[in-house]
């Protein structure tokens, strides 16, 4: 069997067989799935319908609140005129889901005459805000009607709660683009960082174990280095594939198990948050617009997929090789007891910078910073991965090609540099890890 193949297989097999690999591959998706599901579950459990008993001295507001503002989350009940605030508050003193709202006769008219809300538990800022908005909305409509005889409710009903702007530009929906951009950049960042460090650790392990000389008597140092980089790179790609696939499976399983209609929940949340001046949202054709958006998103994803599948592997391979080579060089130059931290830092700085720039792409995809960092080989794997959804292929195709070309030229140089350092440094024991020594070993190698 080809020796390089043998090395790659060993590097791959020993890592994949480790418990940590299996645990990470299963636990990570579980965590991701839980992270998505948990807030929804929490929302579901906390968004129990609350009853607000309205003791209304304005005579008009309470009735309208009960009629127009009762929703899935808050049910307004207008108390009879005979009920005084003392009686009602005393009666519901110990009820946890019931609140008492007192509106005095000057409510809204005199600014220092606020309504009062009595509750035993803590209603939460969302509930407070909704009650406040509901009261103001009704009050506003009454005042407008009094002055202009204009029925705001009817006007609102006619107008709907918002106007819709459909994105008709080229390519993907901007929101979908943002998610894809962030996901691409982050994936790249993790791959380079986690598995780059693994390459360094693997190289150091062989040196510390003193098995290196035995291995080197069977295979050339450069081949060994390549075997290690490729083997570990494949572990990274496999792990990410497994994580993504199992995440989807877990998510599906949990979703069907707890039976959450996420679309509806999200929709409800939106309604809850946007309740300002929104009287009859349930009657509006909201769902169909969302359905349309989803359809657009799916269509967009489909059109983005070929780009993703063709370009991302280049960026993945280039970025990983580039950094793995640096990490391998540091690993080979390190001694068992040396502190490698200060040598890792210069390598990780461009990676982190790349990630930071990638997060700005969503808001400003065509900034100069984004343009240059997506071309600069040390940051391009991450920034270009994040920029990819925003690329206009008709005009910007050359930028992607140039970035990839520059990246691979740098990969060629960095792996040559790493191989030279590696070849000499891997057999050096007891010498200090310093930039001077790394340079010396680079020059010494023939």
């Amino acid at each position: 069997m080809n020796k390089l193949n043998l090395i790659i297989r060993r590097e791959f097999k020993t890592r994949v067989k480790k418990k940590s690999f299996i645990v990470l591959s299963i636990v990570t998706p579980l965590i991701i799935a839980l992270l998505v599901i948990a807030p929804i579950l929490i929302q579901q459990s906390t968004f129990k319908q609350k009853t607000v008993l309205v003791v209304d001295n304005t005579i008009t507001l309470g009735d309208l609140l009960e009629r127009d503002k009762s929703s899935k989350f808050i049910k307004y009940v207008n108390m009879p005129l005979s009920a005084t605030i003392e009686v009602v508050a005393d009666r519901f003193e110990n009820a946890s889901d019931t609140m008492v709202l007192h509106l005095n006769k000057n409510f809204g008219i005199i600014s220092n005459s606020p309504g009062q809300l009595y509750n035993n538990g803590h209603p939460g800022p969302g509930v407070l805000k909704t009650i406040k908005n509901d009261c103001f909305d009704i009050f506003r409509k009454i005042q407008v009607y009094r002055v202009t005889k204009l029925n705001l409710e009817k006007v609102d009903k006619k107008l709907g709660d918002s106007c819709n702007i459909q994105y008709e530009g080229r390519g993907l929906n901007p929101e979908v683009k943002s998610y894809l951009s962030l996901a691409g950049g982050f994936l790249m960042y993790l791959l380079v960082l986690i598995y780059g460090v693994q390459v360094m650790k693997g190289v150091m392990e062989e040196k510390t174990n003193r098995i290196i000389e035995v291995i080197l008597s069977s295979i050339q140092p450069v081949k060994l280095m390549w075997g290690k980089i490729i083997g570990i790179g494949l572990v990274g790609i496999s792990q990410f594939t497994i994580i993504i696939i199992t995440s989807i499976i877990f998510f599906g399983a949990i979703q069907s198990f707890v039976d959450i209609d996420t679309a509806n929940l999200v929709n409800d949340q939106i309604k809850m948050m946007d309740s300002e001046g929104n009287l009859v949202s349930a009657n509006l054709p909201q769902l169909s617009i969302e359905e349309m958006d989803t359809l657009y998103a799916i269509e967009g994803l489909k059109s983005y997929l070929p780009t993703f599948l063709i370009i991302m592997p280049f960026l993945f391979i280039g970025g990983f090789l580039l950094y793995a080579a640096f990490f391998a060089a540091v690993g080979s130059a390190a001694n068992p007891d040396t502190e490698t931290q200060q040598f890792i830092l210069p390598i990780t700085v461009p990676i982190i910078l790349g990630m930071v720039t990638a997060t700005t792409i969503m808001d400003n995809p065509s900034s100069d910073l984004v343009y240059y960092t997506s071309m600069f080989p040390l940051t391009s794997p991450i920034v270009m991965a994040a920029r990819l959804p925003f690329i206009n292929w008709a005009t910007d195709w050359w930028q992607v090609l140039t970035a990839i070309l520059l990246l691979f030229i740098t990969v060629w140089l960095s792996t040559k540099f790493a191989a030279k350092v590696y070849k000499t440094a891997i057999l050096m024991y007891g010498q200090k890890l310093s930039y001077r020594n790394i340079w010396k070993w680079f020059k010494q190698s023939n």
Partner: protein
Amino acid sequence: MRYIVEAEKVVKNFSNHTALNKVTIKIPEGCIYGLLGPNGAGKTTFIRLINQISKPDSGTVLFYNKPLEEDHITKIGYLPEERGLYKKMKVGEQAMYLAQLKGMNKTDAKAKLKDWFTKFDILDWWNYKVEDLSKGMAQKIQFIVTVVHKPKLLILDEPFSGFDPINTELIKKEILELKEKGTTIIFSTHNMQSVEEICDYITLINKSEVILQGKVEEIKKQFSKNEFEIHFTGNMLSFTTALWTGFQLIKKEEIQKNEFKVTVAPIDNQSINDLLGSVIVGCKVKSVKETSASIHDIFIRTIGEDNLTDTNN
């Protein structure tokens, strides 16, 4: 004579020193060749050249009359002084990996490894993790993976360091057995006793240069001090009287009353027979042997002289 390795005027420089300076070493096929020298002399650098771990700056290294090429690696077995194993890997799995790296196919590697494991009575360890093995146990594995692919040339760098006496004997026996089967062995060591016991040839390297080279017997002869050790019973006075034949007394040791071991040396070119002729008149000679220099002495003397020359220069 057929040589397995011929290194001719090999030079290897590192950035701040020369590790090998015009070193010429020819290793005959089928022998055990000792590579001696103090730490930092250049032994390991020379071994690494043969193993193609590094390349010479100038000079040639031939393997069976051909310049070194990648394929030669499979014909060489190398046990470095600093040897290790992957701690987290299982013994069998690791042995298989190393054997395959030496060019063996899977089936062959497994069969041969099982043979060796059985021979060393360690077949039970196949599924152990290396980190669970003792140092001695790990050394046995290291020896096996060095020889499993039946190398033509076996390079052992300090093979006995860290071995207990039982394992040392076991490995020594295996080395001699391999030599019987035609394997050439390069033996780099500080252990002079083992050199005397098993080496046919030696090269002594000091400060990157060869300072002594040849057959062990011939070198010992060359360094012979022309002294004789005589073991006798009788009167010491009559023995000393016999020395008038032209010998001087170097050392005297009284073993018990009237029993002595003495070392004598001829003053000119007298024959030991002349001395014995006179001695046997008054004493009973039990044994006579020519005292030869030990490799240890030769090592110390040569290195010492070499260093002295350097200092004087």
